[in-house]
């Protein structure tokens, strides 16, 4: 059964979209990851224009993070002060990102930028995940623990920065520049690649800011919800690249998949699955990299002038 996506301006098989959305949702529930970093490249693989894939994914990330943030808010695991500073940085980053996206689109380099961004991003993420899961599989001490045991308060250069702010919930007194910069980078990622950016933000909050781990996830979800919502709004207004039909399809099936995944994760052995996810992420990165390196069958391509 074919369904017409009004903004992507293409017909797709509805079961293909539902299958992809469900599978990525299942994975995101299973591993507690956003899933956008897999969904965007998969959408591009099936022929959705990269701009639409990125814009739509931002809207979908709003949905997948909002239920998480409300759950964390009920448990008091959100540092609102920190979340607000991160969000302000995120909005600026998203604004710059959407503008840059538009410039690159008209210059004909947006596809390359997105692919290259994903090759680097997925390569690093997949590599880290593999490195972290392998010691567990091989019955060794996880690498992350060794890093975490160093604890906060080590970055002396950071404490010399001006504009210090007190973050009561995190029990921190640090310069606002650092969370603003982290938020900015995450906003840039959301706008350019359609990912939530949790992968970048969570480690940065733990290792760079030294935030207590129990407020990290809630606070990052708080920022992601607002920044992806702002980005989706900007992408829809500036680049006209949010396909609401595609977003709703992915969202409904993705939410169901995520819930099933979350339930399954309690029952199955995590480490082997983590290794598999890491390998899958690396496989997507390699596929994207090959497309960039292999001599294209056709050196010429159309489009980009009037957005067609």
């Amino acid at each position, binding site marked *: 059964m074919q369904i017409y996506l009004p903004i992507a301006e293409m017909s797709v098989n509805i079961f293909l979209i539902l299958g992809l959305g469900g599978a990525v949702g299942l994975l995101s529930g299973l591993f507690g990851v956003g899933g956008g970093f897999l969904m965007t490249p998969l959408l591009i693989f099936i022929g959705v224009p990269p701009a639409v894939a990125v814009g739509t994914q931002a809207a979908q990330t709003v949905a997948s993070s909002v239920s998480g943030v409300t*759950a964390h808010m009920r448990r008091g695991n959100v540092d609102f002060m920190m979340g607000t500073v991160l969000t302000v940085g995120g909005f600026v980053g998203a604004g710059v990102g959407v503008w840059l996206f538009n410039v690159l689109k008209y210059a*004909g380099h947006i596809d390359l930028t997105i692919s290259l961004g994903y090759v680097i991003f997925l390569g690093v993420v997949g590599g880290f995940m593999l490195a972290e899961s392998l010691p567990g599989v091989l019955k060794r001490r996880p690498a992350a623990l060794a890093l975490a045991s160093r604890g906060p308060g080590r970055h002396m250069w950071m404490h010399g920065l001006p504009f210090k702010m007190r973050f009561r919930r995190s029990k921190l007194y640090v310069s606002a520049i650092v969370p603003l910069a982290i938020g900015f980078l995450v906003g840039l990622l959301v706008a350019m690649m359609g990912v939530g950016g949790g992968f970048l933000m969570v480690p940065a909050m733990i290792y760079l800011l030294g935030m207590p781990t129990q407020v990290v996830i809630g606070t990052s979800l708080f920022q992601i919800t607002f920044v992806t919502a702002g980005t989706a709004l900007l992408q829809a207004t500036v680049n006209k690249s*949010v396909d609401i039909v595609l977003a709703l399809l992915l969202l409904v099936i993705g939410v169901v998949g995520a819930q099933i995944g979350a339930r399954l994760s309690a029952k199955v052995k995590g480490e082997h699955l983590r290794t598999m996810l890491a390998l899958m992420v690396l496989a997507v990165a390699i596929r994207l990299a090959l497309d960039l390196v292999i*001599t294209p069958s056709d*050196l010429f391509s159309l489009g*980009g002038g009037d957005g067609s």
Partner: protein
Amino acid sequence: MPARAQDVPLVADLSNHLVAITTGFTGTDVLLFGATDGPGDIAVVVRGPAKDDVVREKRRFGPIWANSDSVTFRDVPSYYRVASSRPLEEFAPETLLSRYQIGLNAIRIIDANANATPGSAAESRKALLRLKTESNLYDQGLGAVTQMSNRLFRTELHFPANVPTGTYLVEVYLFREGQIASAEIVPLVISKVGVGAEIYDFAHGRFAFFYGLISVLLALAAGWTAGAVFRRV
């Protein structure tokens, strides 16, 4: 247009003057039919609305292939299809084909880049025609017009799923002894209808901001509801 005989030598019409692209649209066929007042050859040209097109050429930068040179072409027909009762060159002289832009080789495409070298512009022109043909938007369907007892003729015009919207012109030419004896132009409108069209117009119109706002609110509501529903299960 060339001289007409007193009696109309050529009449033509379409089975459908409006192609509606709905959510389930996977392409469609429109029947072109007509009659002539005697023997002659028929050439049909279908032209989609003119748009600007950019052709980009990839080059190797280190290990990576990236777009480098681009040529912009002005007023390129977004859709172009020729059908004729016999191969064009068998009944129509080159000069007429090029004057009326009948056939892929005769389409006039002007590049807008002042700095593009003639060589690269010619290469890009060829690439443009090839890419359009590959995406089923251009075609030279030879011998596709069937004639019956030298009076009636018909042809199926195919419009693929990716057909651009707008006003199309279907030009019908009657050739006799190397001359255009008569010609007729039938307009055809291809437009999106239904929910898909409403969404597209909303998203691309003046209220794009509100489209974005509604999208975000829908996403928020859906995520919230899902979370609430599954908490109780």
